[in-house]
C-alpha cells in the first residue's frame, strides 16, 4: 500500500470560472451554454440505479448464451462433439451455415487479410476463440452445457511474442500469407542529411505491455428477431451502433434495413466497445435460427482471457541531437502486436500505421524515419484503446528525449523547450504532414514545470536510503475528430464524413436531439444540451438526447477518436441554428415583427420588448397551424444538418504531464507523490466534464504505467483471468491530480473546442517512467518497459548492481 497520496488542499486549479459562458441578460439564470460547469442531466438515473444496461434487458422467451472457447492459443480443431441430449441447445460452426466470418481489410498496398470465424471450424488462433455456443434458460445452465462439449485440438506452436513471429520457421498464421504481418508502413524524410554531425546519439529499446481495456461493464448483447418488422434487433453494449449494424448485416447476409442496433446505457467503452464481436454475430444468428431472444453477457474471465487486445508495442528507436539540444532526427522501427485477426472496423493496421505518423509528437525535427509492422500473433485481435497508438509513441519519444537530455547534460525541460513547435508557428505542418491547428506548447511545459516546482523537488531528493525520489515530464499532442482526408487513405471499412444531427421541437416546446454517436460516460446528454442552449436558447433541462439506436438516429461512425464534442457538437449546433431561423420566422409573425429583429434566448423569442415562448412557437406550428404565416417553412420545426470541421485534419489538443515519484528501492514500489496536468482542450463546453475526462484518462494511463499487463507464456496462454491477477488502479494508488487548463480555441471547430477524451491516458507512462529513471539514475538503473512493476524495478536495480559489480 505504498502509493498513499498525501492529502492536499485545492488540488484543482481549473480555469473553468473564466471559461464560463458569455454573460446573458442581467437577470438571466446561471450560465447553461458553452463553457458552463453544468451538472449532468444523466446523473439522476444512474444514481438511482435506474440506468438500463444491456444486462438489464429481459425479453419474453429469452435464452442465455454461453460459449466454449479455445483453451489453446494455436491448434487444429479436429472435432467438437455436442453433449448427449443437447443437440438442439449446442451449436457448432456447421450449425451457422451461411453466416460469414468477420473481415476488415485495409486498402493499403501489401495488406494481408484475415477472416475471423464466428465459431471456429478447423483452426483456432488464440485462447478464448469461440468454438461452440450453448443456450439455456439461465447462464449457469448454459455454462453447464458448454463445458460438456468435447473437443479435440492438435496444438500447433504458438506465436506468443511479436518480436519472434517473423522468424524463419515460425508457423504461418493464415493460409496464403507470406509472413506473420498484416502490413508494414514506413515514412522517411531527410534522415541521412539531418544526422550528420549529431553531438548526441541515443539508441533505445522500449516495450509496452498488452492490456485489457476493462470497462467495469463487459460487452454484451440481446438479439431478437422482430417478425412484425421483419427486422433483427440487436441490443448491444456498443460505442458505434451504426458500424455494428453494417458489419452485422454483412456477416448475416441481411439488408441493413433488416437490422436495427440499439445501444442502451453502456458501462464504459474506451474503444473496447467499438468493434463488431463474433459473439454478437453468433447471438444474432441464433436468434434468427431459433426465433427466440438470445442474450450473451461477457463475464470478467471472458474479457481478460479473450479480450486482451491493446497497447502492445516494441520500439527500436534512435534519437539524434545537436550539442545545443536541437533535435535533429528520430529513426525508429516499431512493432505492434496486432493479434490473430483484423477486427472490424478499425482493422489490424490502424494502430501501427498511426505509430509512423504521430511518433514525432509536438516536436520539430529535420529528419525522420519510422517503420511499423502490424505483426500477427496468437493473441486476441488488436483494438484501438483510449489514446490508441499515442500512449506508446509518447512513451518511446519522451524517454528518448530524456535520454538525449542526459547525454547532453541538459535538464529535460530544456531539451523539450528547445524543440517544441513554437506558438508563433501555429498553425504548423509537421514532419509527417500533421496540421497542428493552434496552441502554445512551450507555455504548457513552463506551467507544468512551475506547478510541480521541479527545481525544489530536485534539490530535496534524498541521495541515500531506501526511498528515492524523481521528477518526470511528458508532453504530447493529440489529434482528435479527424475525418475523411485522414481515414480514407487507410482504406478500412469505416471512413468518417459529415456528422449528422437532427433537432426537433416538440409540440410542448421541448427539444429532441438525435445523434448517431453514443454517450457512455462522456456526458453528451448534457454537453449537447448546452450547445442547444447556446444556439437555440432552450433550457438544457428541456432537451432530450436520442442516441444509440440506428432506427432513431442519423448515421454516424459513432463514438471514438475524441470526436463527439467537436463533430456531434458541431452538428447539433448546425441543426439548432437552422431550427432557430425557422423559429424566428414564426415568432416574427406572432410578434408582428421583422424576422431580422427577432432574437432567441432563455426559452423566448424576443423582438424589442415583446416576446413569445419557444413553446408558443411550437404549439402554433403543430397544433394551431391556422396562425402560421403563409410562407412558413414547410420543413417545419425539425432540422437535420451535417457538419464537418473547417479542415478535417483534426483538432490538436495537447498536454504536459509532470509527476513526482518516490521509488522504494528495496521493494521496487513506485509511489506517485504529486501529479500535474497542464492541458489545452480549446474552448471547453463543460469544464467539469473536461476535467472528468482528464482525471479518468490519467488514471487509465497510470494503470498502463504501473499495473496493467496481460502476460503470455511460451504457449500463448494468457496468465491472468481474474481482477486479482490483472490489476487495475484503485483509489489509494492515485495521488491528487492537479489540472491546469489552457484554452486556445481551435480555428477549425464550431466553438473552438478540441477533442480531449483520450488525452489523459497518453502522458502518464512516459512521465512516470522519466520520473522513475530520474530517481534511479544515481544508482545506474533505468526502466524501459511497461508496466513498471516492483519486480521490473527490482530487476533493473539488480542489473545495474551486477553491471557496477562487473
Amino acid at each position, binding site marked *: 500500500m505504498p502509493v498513499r*497520496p498525501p492529502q492536499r488542499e485545492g488540488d484543482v486549479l481549473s480555469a473553468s470560472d473564466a471559461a464560463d459562458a458569455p454573460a446573458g441578460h442581467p437577470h438571466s439564470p446561471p450560465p447553461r451554454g458553452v463553457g458552463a460547469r453544468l451538472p449532468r442531466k444523466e446523473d439522476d438515473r444512474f444514481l438511482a440505479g435506474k440506468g438500463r444496461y444491456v444486462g438489464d434487458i429481459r425479453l419474453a422467451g429469452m435464452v442465455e448464451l454461453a460459449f466454449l472457447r479455445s483453451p489453446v492459443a494455436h491448434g487444429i480443431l479436429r472435432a467438437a462433439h455436442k453433449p448427449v441430449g443437447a443437440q438442439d441447445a449446442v451449436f457448432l460452426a456447421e450449425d451457422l451455415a451461411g453466416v460469414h466470418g468477420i473481415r476488415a481489410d485495409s486498402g493499403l498496398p501489401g495488406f494481408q487479410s484475415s477472416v475471423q470465424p464466428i465459431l471456429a471450424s478447423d483452426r483456432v488462433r488464440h485462447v478464448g476463440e469461440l468454438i461452440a455456443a450453448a443456450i439455456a434458460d439461465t447462464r449457469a445452465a448454459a455454462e453447464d452445457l458448454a463445458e460438456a462439449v468435447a473437443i479435440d485440438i492438435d496444438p500447433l506452436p504458438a506465436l506468443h511474442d511479436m518480436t519472434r513471429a517473423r522468424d524463419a520457421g515460425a508457423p504461418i498464421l493464415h493460409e496464403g500469407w507470406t509472413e506473420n504481418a498484416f502490413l508494414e508502413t514506413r515514412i522517411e524524410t531527410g534522415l541521412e542529411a539531418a544526422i550528420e554531425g549529431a553531438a548526441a546519439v541515443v539508441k533505445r529499446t522500449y516495450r509496452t505491455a498488452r492490456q485489457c481495456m476493462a470497462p467495469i461493464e463487459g460487452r454484451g448483447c440481446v438479439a431478437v428477431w422482430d417478425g412484425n418488422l421483419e427486422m433483427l434487433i440487436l441490443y448491444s453494449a456498443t460505442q458505434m451502433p451504426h458500424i455494428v449494424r453494417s458489419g452485422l448485416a454483412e456477416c448475416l447476409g441481411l439488408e441493413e434495413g433488416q437490422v436495427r442496433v440499439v445501444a442502451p446505457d453502456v458501462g464504459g467503452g474506451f474503444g473496447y466497445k467499438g468493434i463488431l464481436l463474433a459473439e454478437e454475430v453468433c447471438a444474432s444468428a441464433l436468434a434468427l435460427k431459433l426465433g427466440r431472444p438470445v442474450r450473451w453477457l461477457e463475464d470478467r474471465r471472458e474479457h481478460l482471457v479473450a479480450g486482451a487486445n491493446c497497447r502492445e508495442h516494441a520500439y527500436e528507436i534512435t534519437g539524434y541531437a545537436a550539442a545545443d539540444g536541437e533535435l535533429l532526427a528520430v529513426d525508429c522501427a516499431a512493432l505492434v502486436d496486432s493479434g490473430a485477426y483484423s477486427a472490424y472496423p478499425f482493422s489490424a493496421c490502424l494502430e501501427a500505421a498511426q505509430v509512423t505518423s504521430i511518433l514525432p509528437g509536438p516536436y520539430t525535427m529535420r529528419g525522420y524515419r519510422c517503420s511499423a509492422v502490424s505483426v500477427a500473433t496468437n493473441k486476441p485481435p488488436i483494438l484501438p484503446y483510449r489514446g490508441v497508438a499515442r500512449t506508446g509513441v509518447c512513451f518511446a519519444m519522451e524517454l528518448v528525449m530524456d535520454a538525449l537530455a542526459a547525454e547532453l547534460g541538459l535538464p529535460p525541460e530544456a531539451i523539450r523547450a528547445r524543440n517544441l513547435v513554437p506558438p508563433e508557428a501555429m498553425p504548423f505542418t509537421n514532419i509527417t504532414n500533421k496540421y497542428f491547428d493552434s496552441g502554445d506548447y512551450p507555455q504548457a511545459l513552463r506551467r507544468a514545470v512551475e506547478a510541480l516546482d521541479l527545481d525544489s523537488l530536485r534539490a530535496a531528493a534524498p541521495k541515500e536510503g531506501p526511498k528515492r525520489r524523481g521528477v518526470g515530464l511528458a508532453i504530447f499532442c493529440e489529434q482528435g475528430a479527424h475525418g475523411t482526408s485522414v481515414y480514407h487513405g487507410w482504406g478500412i471499412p469505416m471512413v468518417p464524413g459529415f456528422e449528422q444531427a437532427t433537432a426537433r421541437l416538440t409540440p410542448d416546446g421541448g427539444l429532441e436531439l438525435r445523434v448517431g454517436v453514443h454517450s457512455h*460516460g462522456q456526458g453528451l446528454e448534457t454537453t449537447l444540451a448546452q450547445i442547444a442552449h447556446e444556439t437555440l436558447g432552450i433550457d438544457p433541462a428541456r432537451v432530450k438526447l436520442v442516441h444509440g439506436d440506428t432506427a432513431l438516429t442519423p448515421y454516424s461512425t459513432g463514438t471514438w477518436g475524441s470526436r463527439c464534442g467537436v463533430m456531434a457538437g458541431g452538428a447539433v449546433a448546425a441543426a439548432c441554428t437552422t431550427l432557430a431561423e425557422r423559429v424566428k420566422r414564426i415568432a416574427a409573425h406572432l410578434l408582428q415583427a421583422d424576422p431580422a429583429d427577432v432574437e432567441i434566448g432563455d426559452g423566448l423569442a424576443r423582438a424589442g420588448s415583446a416576446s413569445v415562448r419557444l413553446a408558443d412557437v411550437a404549439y402554433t406550428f403543430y397544433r394551431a397551424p391556422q396562425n402560421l404565416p403563409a410562407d412558413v417553412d414547410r420543413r417545419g420545426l425539425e432540422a437535420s444538418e451535417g457538419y464537418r470541421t473547417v479542415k478535417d485534419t483534426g483538432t490538436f489538443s495537447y498536454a504536459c504531464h509532470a509527476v513526482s515519484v518516490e521509488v522504494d528501492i528495496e521493494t521496487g514500489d513506485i509511489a506517485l507523490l504529486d501529479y500535474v496536468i497542464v492541458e489545452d482542450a480549446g474552448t471547453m463546453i463543460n469544464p467539469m466534464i473536461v476535467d472528468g475526462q482528464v482525471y479518468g484518462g490519467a488514471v*487509465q494511463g497510470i494503470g498502463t504505467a504501473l499495473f496493467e499487463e496481460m502476460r503470455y507464456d511460451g504457449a500463448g496462454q494468457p496468465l491472468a483471468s481474474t481482477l486479482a491477477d490483472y490489476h487495475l488502479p484503485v483509489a489509494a494508488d492515485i495521488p491528487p491530480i492537479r489540472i491546469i487548463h489552457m484554452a486556445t480555441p481551435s480555428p477549425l471547430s464550431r466553438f473552438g473546442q478540441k477533442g480531449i477524451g483520450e488525452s489523459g491516458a497518453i502522458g502518464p507512462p512516459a512521465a512516470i517512467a522519466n520520473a522513475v529513471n530520474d530517481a534511479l539514475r544515481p544508482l545506474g538503473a533505468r526502466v524501459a518497459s511497461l508496466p513498471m512493476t516492483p519486480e521490473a524495478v527490482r530487476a533493473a536495480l539488480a542489473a545495474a548492481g551486477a553491471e557496477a559489480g562487473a
Partner: protein
Amino acid sequence: MSTAITLDINGRTVAGEAEPRTHLADFLREELLLTGTHLGCEQGVCGACTVFVDGRPVRACLTLAHACDGQSVRTVEGFDDDALMARLRDAFKTHHGLQCGFCTPGMLATAYDIVRRLPQADTARIRRELSGNLCRCTGYHGIVAAIEAVLAEGPPPAALVPTAHRSRMPREAPADVPAPERTAAVADGPASVLKPFAAYPAADALTGEATLARSITIDAPCEAVWAMVENPKTIAAAIPGAHLDALGEDGTLRGHLEVALGPMRARFAGVGAMRLDPAGRQGELRGEGQDRLSRTGLAAALAFTLAPREDGGTQLSFTATYALNGPLAQFGRPALVAAAADRILEEAIASIARRARGEEAAPAPRRLGGFALLVGIVRDAFARALRGRRP
C-alpha cells in the same frame, strides 16, 4: 433445483426461488428485476455488486442467495427516503463522481458505509476504504471529493445501520437443497490414442513449461532403485493422485491423475509412454492429458537418472517438465505454484526411496497439492529458481 427463500428486500418481505448456486446479485437481478445491482467481475474484486445485508455492505457476487434466507437486503433501489443517501447522490452529481454509472450503485453503498462508520476519515483513509470498488471512468477524483464534501458538511445520521449479529438458526426443518441435475451428459471426447514414445513432445519442446529438478540420496543399492523406477506401476504409485489404468508391452500407458489444491480439484485423463536405457540407468516418461471439465491440458516429460554412490547408496536425479494450457494455466500466484510443486515432487521421490529401501509402501497417496504444479503456469522466475537448484 430451485427452492424457496424469504428475504426482506428494501423493506418488503420477498419470497423467491433460487438454486443453491445462485448468488445474491443474480437473485436480485434476474428473479426480482432489481437491476441496479451490477456485476462487474463475479470474482469479488470490483465491488460493483456491493449491497447491504443486515445493514453491512457485502459483495453480492460472493454471497449466496440461500445464505441470505431470513436476512435483510438493501439495494440501491431501496434508499428513496434516506437523507444520507440523498446527500451522497447530490454530492456525486456536484463533484462529477460518476460517468458511465456502472460502478455507481456499489460506490454509493461503500460511500454510505464510509460516511457513517468513519466520520473522521481523511482523504487518504477515504481512498483506502474505496479501494475495494473499481471505477474505470472517473479516476476516483470526483468520488473522493464527493465523500469529503459530505463528511465536511456534517452528514445527516444514517438511517441504515448494521443489525446485531443473529445466529441464523435455521427454521424447524432445515432445508437441504439438492444440487440440480445436469441437463445433458458430458459428451464423450475423442479417445486418446496411445502413441509411441517419440510421438510425445520432449521436455525441450514443451512451451510454457515449468521445470522442476531434484536429486536425492537413497540408502539402497542402485539395482534396487532401478527395479523401482523401471516399472511404470511403481512410479505411478509414487506420484500422489496418479493411477495407471492400462499398460502396454511397448511402454505405452493410459492413466489418470487426480490433483487437488484446497477446494480446487482436477482429474487429468491421459496417455503416455516410457523409454528406458537400462545400461545408462536412465529413463524418461512422457505423456499428455486433459481435465475434461476445466478443459485444462497437461503435457509432461519426466526424466530420471540413477548413479551408484561410493557408500553403496544411489543418487537419484529427477527432472520433471510440465506444460499447461487452459483455465488452470491462467493465474498469477507464482509462490503457490512453487510450493505446491515442491511438495508433490518431494512426495514422489520420498515414496520411491522408501520402496527402494524395502520399507512398507506408504498408503496410496491422497490427492495432493499437485494441482498447483499444474496450475503452474510457470513463470520465468519460478522456472529459473528451480533450475538453479539442480545439484
